[in-house]
């Protein structure tokens, strides 16, 4: 039975899952959800995700929402195929994957998502972009990336010397962030820059990046 992913190819949370699917070499069907027509707020979709957000994964009888729970599930179910994104054979390594996945969730995402939303999404939905919000979050982002810079001068990837879900989760928003006028915040930090160039050139990501078209006419 084929995995079904409900979402859109330019949505950061949907692409977070798509990258994981490609990393594991899994076939799936992308079922578009018309966010502009508020399909995600209709009862049929709410039955799959009561929060009315994309993505949703259907795997046989199992329906899951929250992109990071979905990637964790896929990485575990298919842990023996291709790269082990969760380091399941080492309790300590898998613990570090968990730590840096939480860091992405709670320290990085809230900050970088604000910048991407204000710069790309606000104009798309007819709102003016709020420079104060952008500026506040650029400052916060600098501080977070200072921690990353130190970390990545000790290890090749965030959780250790191995690519993992912790790095993968950063790909979607960072891709869009690098298209804003403020990419230098990342590029000015050499270890972060090297890490970004490495993870964003992975074939699984390149396949998904093709559909990530915010900010392009």
């Amino acid at each position, binding site marked *: 039975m084929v995995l079904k992913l409900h979402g859109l190819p330019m949505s950061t949370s949907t692409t977070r899952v798509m990258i994981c699917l490609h990393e594991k070499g899994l076939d799936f069907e992308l079922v578009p959800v018309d966010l502009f027509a508020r399909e995600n707020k209709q009862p049929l979709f709410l039955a799959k995700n*009561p*929060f009315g957000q994309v993505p949703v994964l259907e795997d046989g009888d*199992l329906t*899951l*929402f*929250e*992109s*990071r*729970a979905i990637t*964790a*599930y896929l990485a*575990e*179910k298919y842990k023996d195929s291709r790269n082990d994104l969760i380091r399941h054979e080492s*309790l*300590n390594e*898998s*613990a*570090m994957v*968990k*730590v840096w*996945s*939480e*860091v992405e*969730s*709670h*320290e990085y995402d*809230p900050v970088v998502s604000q910048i991407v939303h204000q710069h790309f999404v606000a104009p798309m939905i007819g709102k003016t972009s709020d420079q104060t919000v952008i500026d506040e979050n650029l400052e916060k982002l600098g501080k*977070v990336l200072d*921690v990353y810079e*130190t*970390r990545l001068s000790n290890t090749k990837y965030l959780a250790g010397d191995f690519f993992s879900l912790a790095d993968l989760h950063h790909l979607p928003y960072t891709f869009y962030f690098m298209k804003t006028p403020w990419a230098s915040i990342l590029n000015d930090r050499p270890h972060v820059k090297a890490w970004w160039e490495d993870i964003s050139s992975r074939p699984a990501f390149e396949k998904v990046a093709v559909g990530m078209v915010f900010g392009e006419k």
Partner: protein
Amino acid sequence: MATPVKVYGPPMSTALSRVLACLHEKDVEFQLIPINMSKGDHKKPEFLKIQPFGQVPAFQDESITLFESRSICRYICEKHAEKGNKRLYGTNPLEKASIDQWIEAEGQSFNPPSSTLVFQLAFAPRMKLKQDPKAIKQNEDKLQKVLEVYEKRLGESRFLAGDEFSLADLSHLPNTQYLVTAANRAEIFTSKQNVGRWWDEISSRDSWKKVVEMQKSS
């Protein structure tokens, strides 16, 4: 005999109490190492070595140091799957996926508005900081919307991830405790039948009562 794990931080910290609740549920011995945040202990170099973002809690288990409360909880559950409450993180991948889903929902949807309200209503007055009425209203509205989703969910299953208490419910204990008992916002929860029933059940667990005792006596 294993060395007790070390948890660094003040008991009143919501994120720290999330970890303590998990340790109690799993019957894992721990040593609480106080961190005096008003003296800036959490920004000192020795602490930044184990928690580079300068936040609490930090955690040490023999040679490994961890931070981010939800990852610490998952680690404790995986390392000690056979101890204490064996069903806390599910007993098979499908149960675990559902629990992870609701831990994410807590982290992404419940935590932002509830932690802002905890800060504004419970901590700011104690710290003699000015409250922001606009932020309070906005986050009350957001929290209401989230709890409407919970109300429906908890009418379908006893706990968030299924019919057993899990890490997903546990994750909600710290912020809700403050909102209900120290911020005069019990009504947001108790006015909803299923949410009210759920809160009563999860907050009366022995593990949580022990954490609350620790917070009161610190």
